[in-house]
């Protein structure tokens, strides 16, 4: 019976080869070609010059910032949703926006955050000074966090939900108050969800490009912006591919570093490893 199934698996192998392995391979090859299609290391040399290193630094800093704020907002949100009666509905409301196309949402935010947009209208109504959101770092962070936060909440929600009620009762029985329970039981036991959330948010936020252009108005240039620029504007595909290759390699390394000790830990505990998916951005 399993032999039959193995035959069908070939479709997935083909899929992975054609749509994952091959494109990555092409990007690698492309990254060694200069503007005149000569094979050399010039793109990598350029990357390790100051401009691109600064971009890399920017990307990492913003990705970290987005991830950190998402985490700080998502953990209490996930925890509080679980405490309410309407957890299913609240969860669906949180997930729903992630089904809508990112570009649409970004455009919607342009309207909301504009100088005479919805948000500023409200501020004016409240007799407050309007704030320049669009084309600022503020706006960029607001929109990015809005986009990514469901991907942080979901894994954390799942891991908190799986904590047996008896452990909470036991901690309380032994004298722990609400804060001590959160600090000593819930946070450590939802570590897997937090890890997954961090990866799912940090990795795609490293290569954001649409939001930087539309909301931040090129105030922030990240690696994602640079890749887009090279492929669509300057036509230097080799340079774009080199940046892409470096991103791919560092992501693989970071996933490996984050996952490896976790796997070792889980093998001992005999627990399923939650799959780490990428946010569709």
């Amino acid at each position: 019976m399993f032999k039959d199934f193995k035959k069908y698996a070939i479709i997935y192998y083909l899929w992975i080869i054609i749509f994952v392995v091959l494109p990555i391979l092409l990007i690698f090859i492309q990254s060694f070609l200069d503007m005149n299609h000569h094979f050399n290391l010039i793109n990598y040399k350029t990357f390790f010059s100051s401009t691109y290193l600064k971009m890399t630094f920017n990307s990492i800093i913003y990705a970290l910032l987005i991830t950190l704020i998402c985490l700080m907002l998502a953990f209490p949100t996930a925890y509080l949703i679980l405490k309410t009666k309407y957890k299913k509905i609240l969860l669906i409301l949180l997930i729903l926006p992630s089904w809508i196309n990112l570009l649409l949402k970004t455009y919607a935010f342009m309207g909301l955050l504009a100088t005479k947009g919805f948000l500023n209208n409200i501020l004016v109504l409240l007799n407050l000074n309007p704030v320049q959101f669009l084309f600022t770092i503020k706006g960029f962070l607001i929109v990015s966090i809005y986009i990514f936060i469901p991907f942080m909440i979901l894994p954390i929600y799942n891991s908190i939900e799986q904590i047996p009620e008896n452990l909470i009762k036991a901690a309380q029985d032994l004298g722990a108050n609400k804060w001590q329970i959160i600090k000593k039981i819930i946070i450590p036991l939802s570590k897997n969800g937090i890890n997954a959330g961090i990866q799912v948010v940090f990795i795609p936020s490293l290569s954001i490009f649409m939001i930087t252009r539309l909301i931040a108005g090129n105030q922030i240039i990240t690696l994602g912006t640079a890749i887009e620029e090279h492929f669509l504007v300057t036509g230097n595909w080799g340079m774009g591919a080199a940046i892409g290759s470096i991103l791919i390699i560092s992501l693989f390394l970071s996933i490996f570093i984050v996952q490896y000790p976790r796997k070792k830990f889980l093998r001992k505990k005999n627990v399923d490893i939650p799959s780490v998916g990428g946010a569709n951005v």
Partner: protein
Amino acid sequence: MKWGKMNIKIELKNIFLSYDHTVIFEDFSMQLDDNKFYTLLGPSGCGKTTILNLIAGFIKPDAGQILIDGIDVTNIEPNKRLVNTVFQDYALFPHLNVYDNVAFSLSLQKISKIEKKKRVMDALNFVNLGEYIYRDIAELSGGQKQRVAIARAIINQPKVLLLDEPLSALDLKLRTEMQYELKKLQKELAITFVFVTHDQEEALGMSDYIYVLNNGQVMQKGNPIDIYDEPKNRFVADFIGESNIISAKYLGDYQVKINNDIYKCVDGNFNQGTLVDVVIRPEDLKIVTHKTKLKVQIITRLFKGMHYEIVGQDISGEKWLIHSIKNVMPGEEVFLDFDPEDIHLMSTNV
């Protein structure tokens, strides 16, 4: 009487509790003395675990009071009550090792590292787990987990230890071993244990005092021997041990009529002509060679190791459960005999 009052450790007063429109307790009261091993025994859904939850503070009653040491704790949160629990599935923290599990309640208080270590070691040595101090929880066997859970619960010197079916996950041999250990532990700690179980054998073996519960009501309370020998009603007789329960009529003057035959008995505090339930334990029925009033035909016979478990049927169709070392064959007709003191009479109402 005054002495008794002074020794009361826990008191549940007129507890009313309902959940989802179902009444669990209606005016339930109980008093538990200091330094005693209590068992709450009953089938699932009888409310025994709910009583533990009320004492621990996980459930608040709709009405009524809970007192510990005479102090009203009804509205005090579980983390402020000097009561600790050993949970059914141990509820050990999987992210902490043995030491940190046991030290959990100490780590919430301001206690020096040296004292903390000393107390953890004392608690672990108390349950014979001194060598396992840095083990991961996942590496422990069921019995070892059980001991860690006990050490964790007693480290804070609680006034009362609550045990929620702590032995149900262990295999038979270990369960028997742990029964002895728990009993010993209670004697050494000299605090009140409230042990919840549906296993009558555990209850009879360990307890100073048993509460038999059904549907949120105390069916009978008393020491194990009284409960076994003198069940108050059909429920208790049926739940505790195996028994033959037969409808009968008390004729007065220490005589009872069972299936048209008149037998002598020693229970006499019934009115003449009262319908009663008669309990005869299967080990009190003797298979004899001489003719008696009770003749049965053997239906089944099961080898149980120490004895045979035999079911016989008399002429009226009544079935009798017999424990005997005599080997009789199904189909065989035998006579049964029993002594007057082996007949226990119970009132049919209650």
